[in-house]
């Protein structure tokens, strides 16, 4: 049975695609500047229908400036909902895997179903981009959103690490994975992680999908978000649940709701410290919650400095303008960089000479100090080369 389906919106950079049953392929296009743009839009729709194995459908497109990958995603989503036998379009992964210990000072959230906000999001210098299929996407748009994010991952080149925040496995997360894993994001962000089993369940699904898509195993990372009382108590096992976990993230909003606490530095200090210790004991990074007042630069700066001092490696951002502030706050001071350089140089020299003990500025330097110095230098390099502005 076939029915009518609609995907997309009339927002800028998007299009509304309406599909209903038909014997042959019928495409109608409404767009600005039709003589210039209509042929291209039609070509994308035809190509997409063919790739989805559809030869009969009436496709109506009302365009508001959608790029090719957005058009493809909207057409695919509507076809799959309306036409029996329409298949998911296969995509090839186009990005190199990332290192598990790379810099992750900022993870910039972007709603997964809003092309206007997705487009160019890679230009803001964030270390990690997080395409959100969970809270930022209303239930009715979940299917279209995961198709859009798939096409984005398969099309747009970016220097940043590309992450997808899926829904919990019992709320559509499995379908999210099926859709996006073949496009191989750098990682999957798992909200509301409550224990090690939650993480392992996602890891197993990812492994199966990697295998199915013929991808090298184990290259998609997991970032569990700890944002409940139960999750906080199990932070240690969450962090250690699977080698794919590279970082733990804290989610304050849900934590407050879950515990009934009121927002204050004190109320959130214990879960933050607990999460940090859990992350460190498993040898992974720790990333703080988002700062939700976009207009309060000073508040963001001081909170970021405070979590940096707790040991956090990064923080979430909900607007591009927050990114440079995060990078500034996580950047080590000149004195710190200078001292780190001397420590690393001394350690390397000692190693070359086969000497065990190292002293810098008259103080003994042991292995953790050297490691921290290396991290400081990496952070400093990130600031220099990362285009934080």
């Amino acid at each position: 049975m076939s029915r009518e389906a609609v995907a997309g919106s009339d927002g800028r950079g998007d299009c509304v695609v309406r599909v209903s049953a038909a014997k042959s392929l019928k495409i109608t296009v409404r767009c600005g500047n039709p003589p210039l743009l209509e042929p291209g839009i039609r070509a994308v729709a035809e190509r997409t229908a063919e790739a989805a194995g559809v030869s009969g459908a009436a496709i109506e497109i009302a365009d508001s400036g959608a790029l090719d990958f957005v058009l493809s995603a909207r057409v695919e989503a509507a076809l799959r909902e309306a036409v029996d036998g329409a298949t998911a379009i296969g995509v090839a992964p186009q990005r190199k895997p990332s290192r598990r210990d790379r810099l992750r000072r900022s993870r910039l959230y972007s709603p997964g179903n809003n092309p206007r906000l997705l487009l160019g999001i890679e230009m803001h210098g964030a270390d990690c981009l997080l395409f959100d299929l969970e809270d930022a996407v209303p239930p009715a748009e979940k299917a279209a959103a995961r198709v859009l994010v798939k096409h984005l991952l398969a099309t747009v080149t970016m220097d940043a690490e590309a992450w997808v925040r899926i829904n919990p496995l019992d709320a559509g997360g499995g379908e999210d994975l099926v859709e996006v894993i073949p496009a191989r994001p750098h990682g999957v962000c798992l909200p509301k992680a409550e224990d090690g089993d939650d993480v392992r369940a996602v890891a197993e699904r990812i492994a199966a999908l990697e295998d199915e898509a013929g991808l090298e195993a184990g290259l998609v990372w997991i970032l569990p978000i700890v944002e409940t009382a139960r999750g906080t108590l199990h932070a240690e096992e969450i962090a250690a649940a699977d080698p794919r976990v590279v970082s733990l993230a804290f989610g304050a909003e849900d934590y407050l709701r879950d515990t009934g606490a009121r927002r204050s530095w004190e109320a959130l200090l214990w879960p933050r410290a607990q999460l940090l210790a859990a992350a460190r004991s498993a040898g992974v990074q720790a990333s703080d919650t988002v700062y939700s007042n976009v207009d309060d630069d000073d508040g963001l700066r001081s909170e970021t400095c405070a979590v940096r001092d707790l040991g956090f490696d990064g923080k979430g951002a909900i607007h591009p303008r927050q990114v440079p502030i995060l990078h500034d706050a996580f950047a080590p001071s000149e004195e710190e960089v200078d001292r780190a350089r001397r420590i690393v140089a001394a350690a390397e020299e000692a190693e070359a000479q086969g000497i065990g003990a190292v002293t810098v500025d008259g103080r003994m330097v042991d292995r953790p100090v050297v490691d921290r110095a290396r991290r400081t230098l990496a952070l400093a390099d990130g600031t220099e080369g990362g285009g934080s502005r």
Partner: protein
Amino acid sequence: MKNAVGREIPEVVGGRTLRPFEGAFATRASGRKAARAQKGIGRDEEKLLPSLDAALEATGLADGMTISFHHCFRDGDALVNQVVDACARKGLRDLRLFATALFPVHKPLLEHIESGVIGRIEGSMNGPVGAFVSQGGMLRDPAVLRSHGGRWRAVEAGDVHIDVAFIAAPQADAYGNANGIHGKTPCGPITFASVDAQYADQTVVVTNDLAPYPAHPFEIQQGWTDYVVEVDEIGDPGNIASGTLQITRSPTRLRIARLAADVVVASPYFVDGFSFQGGAGGVSLATVAYLGEEMERAGIVSSFAIGGGTRFLIDLLHRGRVRTILEGQAFDIEAIRSLREDDGHVTIDPGHYANYDSRGSSTYRLDAAFLGATEVDLEFNANVNTHSDGLLLHGIGGHQDVAAGASMTIITVPALRGRLPVIVDRVTTVTTPGEVIDVIVTDRGIAVNPAREELRDRLVAAGLPVRELEEIKKEAEALTQPAGVPVFGDEIIAVIEWRDGTVIDVVRKVEGWA
């Protein structure tokens, strides 16, 4: 023949011999200015007339003559339509309309073009009138587009002789002194029309607020004015902003603005006393706001800024970050209020800031300027007149004057507008030549004119994302199917003058698209 930017320019168009563009500063004026006839009046003579129809009678406006207007009510203007309606009632034909700019509000003119009341247009055409003309809209001769300074020059030089100037005046006295900053519906300075008022054979001031003598400041002066008419309505100042006066919320555009401000900060010009031009587009407003923050941080005071004045620029004046604002046209109510109240906010006219054939222009004293474009090309040429569909949809404004004048001209454009790449191989129309454009800032990186290697090095050293223009172009093109292109006929529908009166490009009729 081909001009200096490689455009094919015919020798004669509409009976006029064209001089091809030779370079941004290649020509020098000679000869004398084309002044109006001498006239004196007796001490008892009055100028007040009861209606526009009476003014048409009194001036003896006849078929084929030239009437002029200023555009400072922009899309809220109510005078052009009233006067042309009156001309139609009087049975006049083949008039030449010489407004500084026309807007969508002037769409009723299409009827008067079709009926032959208007035979020729010289001046900017924003929107429907331009689209109509582009598709062969029945004008006897091609339209002529000039920059702010270029129009002033053309009037002084006698390239355009105005028979009657109609000047919308938010406040005027019955003796012909007028201004745009007082009255019931202030639109900001009306000094754009001061060259019309001085060079037209006859000048008619039209006001909706007749004030006791003397109405001042004297943006338009009694010694230039032949008649004064009071009418109910001259324009709606609610539309002077044309909806542009919001700082953009688009992350892409904010990024462009941020990068543009960063370019200034990294440039050699960002020192105490530097000067800039800030426009009224969403990106320009954000750039000015960012620049203000950077001046604050660096403890720098700007010696002057050229408007369009907006509340963002006024804010910098009030905070002591800008010492003087030179104002040719106000873009919001705050700017108009400031003109009445602030010492450092000075009204100027296009002759002061932009005239090529003059002994000095404020734009030549500018360090940095931010301008937009509909398209830019790999030679750094900018198009602000036509869209990629070939239709003539915008005027030049001060684009050429500011770009030619500023030491560092920055064009801010998104790499893509919807599905259309903004960086192209060859712009549809050259408005401003690449030789006066130094930097193109897009959301996908910054390109520096190869002639400005030292500037490029500074931006690279500051860690800014400097890239080749071609690389940014390819990246944008990879995201969309190639768009169709306009098919142009032979017929020329508009001539684009460079600010010295030479022709930098012509616009041909759009026959279709392929």
